[in-house]
């Protein structure tokens, strides 16, 4: 059992990534019906911004903090100008728009930073490994695990305990009603989108140190995040966490035994879960009211 313990831990960390990205995607999808195909590009953006900052001399910690915020600003600007006009229209438009944005983004990254990616290693303090008793584990990964865990907890607290979180959840249920009650829905949409991008940004910076930073870094996390949303159930944060963990573990363990089937295993898992629970593990009924 001990020899797959690192894989289990790796799987949980991957799962935490998928969960954080999935929550971001989910927030945007549930409130506005926008499938953000550019979500991966925002992750990569944060990664590259962090790299640029560190290359310019700032500390890693500063970059970890500032890059997601910058990505958030870019995201909110795009939301206000390009995405907002599409809320009232058929979702195919926002799907195509975000897709187009992802094409522009990825090519721009390649233009600026080259085709082969850039080296983005975590700071010395986070390098090396830590003894966990039965095995050694990379310090950086432990750090990631910690940060992601804190984020998830903060997020759940935010959504369940704060007024803004309550408004967001209420708006997902019935945004006409929320508007009638006086909430500025446009502002809400913007903040919601921003939150989603912020989560993506953090995931992007962290992932860059672990998976390497190139134009496709974000996209590698995107598909599993979609699967996480489906498995966990649309509209459920808890589902995203549970689903993410499940998928992370599945991929990790399958990679150990049959590397070629690692992604396919995640889809098989998705299919099985959908057969048993068509709405996902914690999905809610689709019709609103």
């Amino acid at each position, binding site marked *: 059992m001990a020899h797959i313990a690192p894989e289990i831990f790796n799987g949980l960390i991957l799962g935490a990534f998928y969960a954080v990205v999935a929550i971001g995607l989910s927030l945007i*999808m549930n409130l506005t*019906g926008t*499938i953000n*195909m550019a979500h991966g590009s925002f992750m990569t953006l944060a990664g590259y911004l962090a790299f640029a900052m560190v290359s310019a001399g700032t500390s890693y910690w500063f970059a970890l903090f500032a890059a997601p915020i910058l990505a958030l600003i870019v995201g909110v600007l795009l939301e206000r100008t*390009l995405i907002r*006009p*599409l809320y*009232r*229209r*058929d*979702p*195919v*438009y*926002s*799907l*195509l*728009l975000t*897709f*187009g*944005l*992802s*094409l*522009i*983004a*990825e*090519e*721009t990254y*390649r*233009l600026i930073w080259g085709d082969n990616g850039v080296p983005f290693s975590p700071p010395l303090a986070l390098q090396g490994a830590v003894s966990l008793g039965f095995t050694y584990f990379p310090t950086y990964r432990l750090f990631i695990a910690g940060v992601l865990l804190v984020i998830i907890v903060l997020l759940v607290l935010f959504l369940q305990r704060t007024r803004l979180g309550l408004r967001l959840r209420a708006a997902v249920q019935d945004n006409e009603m929320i508007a009638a009650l006086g909430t500025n829905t446009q502002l809400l949409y913007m903040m919601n989108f921003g939150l989603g991008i912020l989560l993506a940004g953090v995931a992007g910076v962290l992932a860059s140190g672990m998976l390497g930073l190139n134009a496709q870094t974000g996209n590698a996390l995107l*598909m599993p995040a*979609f*699967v996480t*949303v*489906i498995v966990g159930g*649309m509209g459920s944060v808890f589902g995203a966490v549970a689903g993410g963990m499940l998928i992370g573990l599945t991929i990790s363990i399958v990679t150990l035994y049959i590397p*070629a*089937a690692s*992604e*396919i295993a995640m*889809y098989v898992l*998705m*299919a099985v879960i*959908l057969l048993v629970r*068509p709405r996902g593990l914690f999905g809610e*009924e*689709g*019709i*609103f*009211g």
Partner: protein
Amino acid sequence: MIMSNRAGLIAGLVLLIALLFMPQIASHIGLAISVCTEVLLYAIAAMAVNLLLGYTGVLPFGNAAFFGLGAYGAGLTIEYLHVGFITSIVLGMAAALVGAVLIGPFLLRRRGIYFALLMIAFGQVFYFIAYRFTDITGGEDGMNFARPAIEGLGVVLKDQQFYYAMLVVFALVVIGFLLLVRSPFGRTLVAIKENEVRARYLGLNTDRFIFVALLISAIMEGLAGACFGLSIMFAYPLMLDWHNSGNIVLMTILGGSGTLFGPFIGAVIFVVGQEILSTHWIWWQIPLGALFVACVLGFPKGILGTALDLFSKRRGGFAFEARELVHGTKLSEREIIP
């Protein structure tokens, strides 16, 4: 919804004649004949998407999986079973059909973005299969295969002949599509797009119709993909990827979703545009992405859609604009209950 019969017939004939001379026109602008073939085949792929998007009103975003299944179906059967030209195409279409039968049931009762999400996700399985099973499919590098001879004739089509063969295929697909959308089945699809709840309250099991529409769409994609594979004599995983799906959906919207010739126009612009852009700029994906953005924000009804709107007094516009009209029953965004 469809142009008057006479106007349509004339447009069709004009188009046919133009296509007969497309190779000559293309070489004048410095385009290879394979580009012309690509236009025709992606036009078929876009028509397949149009069936679902413009006529049935569902949001398909994973159709490239069927396109790729067609290509790999043809390629694999040629490589390992040594089948002939027509058989490889038929088997490619069969592979696409099998793919649709496998994932279709998971899409039943789902609508809106959930339908799209599931289709994107399931579509990617085939991408990963092609990518990972390197021994069989050649993996990331794809698989090369030779263009087989036509059964019974023993002739291998050369590129120019291949184009004209594809033109025949294209013409047949257009005629078939026209017959389909004019049939009672096709009319019912349009009704479903207009107001699915009302369709159900007229006794129609809309899931069944949507499933069959998905199967037909998949077969068309498979046909396009198989022929495209035979055209370039190559099948590669990115054919199956959601990026390719996005391209095909864009072609449909760009030309005009819900119209007969819109997808063709979109395919011409996209394929030719991509060809020209990529030979001149390495960073051609940027103007391509900009095209997506411009189309979506600027002329969502597409070229043909906007043109037809100008020429006739069309109420409410085509395609899924109709969805936005208040028709009384609040449509679920994820699931259909009644």
